[in-house]
């Protein structure tokens, strides 16, 4: 383990930015999102959760797949280039790191998504321990240790120092770049801080949710539960929950006519939208009840049944925080028996 004096943080970031793109939380107009670091930009490591999850650096909200030109009877296809610039996402939280693992299973599973793979291959993740977890957090039930998040490098901002513990080879290469600033440190140095975090977590209302009720849940039983009839009454069918979710994976593919060919691109999509499954002959999910049910069935039942029981939720609490109608996944889990 190493440590860097907090006063040298800017130098550390500038050094990194010299060789790669550095994305970190930046506060603007009262909201914090990950953004590109440049000299003079003030990082905001105090805000716990960014509005947009950092999955966007691996799965951008929109990305071009190819350009297609219809030229008389011929068609020309020009595939978009794969990402080739190294970058680091600095300050991801433990929940978001777990979110990436869940996305990996989808996008790195056969057939591998090459666009995602290229970004994953060029991106390094520095995970930051959560000094002040919030009342909407519930990552512990999903196996996240917010005091010791595992990524390429684990970091703690504690006292006057930034502590860095490289975990993977890529992480070691990253810390190697920072050698001039590094001092040796010991795991003991952050032990007290970690203990503080764990104590704070214990005091949170959702920290000790038991997900047992969802283990081996019977798909049809949950699907046909009367719970769904009323639980979505307040849902306004926006995509906020999906777009702030670090595990929502669904995408849409669309064409945009530029006047000089068409760009085929993909964008994040939400199963809450009415056109998600709309076909020429109708929609198998006719009302918001079915769409709402789909989102939570996917996270709590469908995904676990194909991913060895792993739920497609990481307890980041963004949906709890941001839903315009105060709906969220905890409410749904509780109505399905989670306590």
């Amino acid at each position: 383990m190493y440590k860097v004096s907090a006063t040298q943080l800017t130098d550390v970031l500038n050094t990194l930015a010299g060789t790669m793109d550095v994305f970190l939380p930046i506060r603007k107009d009262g909201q914090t999102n990950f953004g590109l670091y440049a000299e003079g930009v003030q990082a905001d490591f105090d805000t716990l959760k960014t509005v947009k999850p950092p999955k966007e650096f691996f799965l951008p909200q929109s990305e071009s797949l190819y350009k297609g030109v219809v030229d008389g009877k011929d068609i020309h296809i020009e595939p978009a280039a794969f990402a080739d610039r190294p970058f680091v996402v600095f300050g991801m939280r433990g929940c978001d790191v777990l979110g990436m693992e869940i996305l990996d299973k989808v996008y790195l599973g056969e057939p591998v998504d090459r666009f995602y793979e290229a970004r994953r291959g060029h991106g390094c993740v520095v995970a930051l321990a959560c000094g002040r977890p919030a009342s909407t957090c519930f990552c512990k039930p999903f196996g996240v240790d917010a005091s010791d998040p595992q990524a390429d490098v684990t970091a703690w901002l504690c006292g006057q120092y930034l502590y860095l513990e490289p975990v993977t080879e890529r992480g070691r290469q990253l810390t190697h770049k920072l050698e001039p600033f590094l001092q040796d440190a010991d795991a003991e140095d952050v032990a007290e801080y970690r203990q503080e975090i764990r104590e704070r977590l214990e005091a949170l209302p959702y920290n000790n949710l038991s997900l047992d009720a969802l283990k081996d849940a019977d798909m049809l039983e949950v699907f046909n539960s009367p719970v769904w009839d009323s639980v979505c009454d307040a849902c306004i069918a926006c995509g906020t929950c999906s777009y702030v979710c670090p595990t929502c994976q669904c995408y849409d593919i669309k064409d945009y006519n530029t006047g000089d060919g068409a760009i085929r691109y993909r964008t994040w999509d939400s199963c809450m939208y009415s056109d998600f499954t709309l076909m020429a002959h109708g929609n198998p999910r006719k009302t918001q009840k079915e769409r709402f049910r789909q989102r939570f069935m996917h996270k709590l039942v469908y995904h676990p049944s194909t991913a060895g029981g792993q739920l497609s939720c990481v307890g980041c609490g963004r949906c709890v925080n941001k839903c315009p109608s105060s709906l969220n996944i905890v409410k749904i889990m509780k109505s399905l028996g989670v306590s």
Partner: protein
Amino acid sequence: MCMPDTLIPEVGVITSIRDETPDVKTFCVTSATGGKPFGHKPGQCAMLSVPGVGEAMFSITSSPTNTLYMEFSVKRCGTLTDYMHTMQEGDGITIRGPYGKPFPVDDVLRGQDLLFIAGGIGLAPVRSVINYVFDKREDYGSVDIVYGSRSAGDLVFRPEIEDTWRSRPRTNVYLTIDRPEEGWSGNVGFVPAYLGSLGLGCDKTVIVCGPPVMIKFVLEELVKLGFKKQQIYTTLELRMKCGIGKCGRCNIGSKLVCKDGPVFRCDEVDELPDEY
């Protein structure tokens, strides 16, 4: 250059277009350099697309034993299919695939007596299996084909049915249309009722495809006739974008139609939520 992503299609060409019915055309597609774009199994699908218009999943209508080209029978019903119906021979079209799980033609279906039931454009995916079976006729038992549509003009592959299928050994073809019309001497009535009147034995393996409501009543009829759900295969369709199990919209419960389907055994479908 490393391997392109699966979402990047190959450019193919439409070599011929055949009118099947007033709103169904069959498109023959090859690679730009000739020959089939890729191999496939009966029941599998491919993504066809025209840049700037859209992309959609279609079942491959031709049999894998056809090594020269692929056929797609397409009903005019949406943005892309409307456009495709205006296309000409020689026009380019992009294609990627093959996608999905095929009918188990080389194991479960081998040696079995087969009963094919289709309604309307639902014959398109089934045709791939039928022609595969006919090309390897000695590997399979008897073949019964029950096919119905709204009117005689809406029956697809009519010349092939009359000229080829009817004359195959150990084969019976039963056609029906919904309402009587002049010049039609065959059966009139819906497929499920016709099916019940044919006196077919229930020791056959069934492949059924058609509009959801037809499938529902056909299944009821089959069960009444003594068939077990394990004997019945069907092929489903939902909206798809990627075709490779990632975009997340074609799921029925935990199964993805593009990846775990489109071919399902009916007892498997029974275990899934009723949302298709």
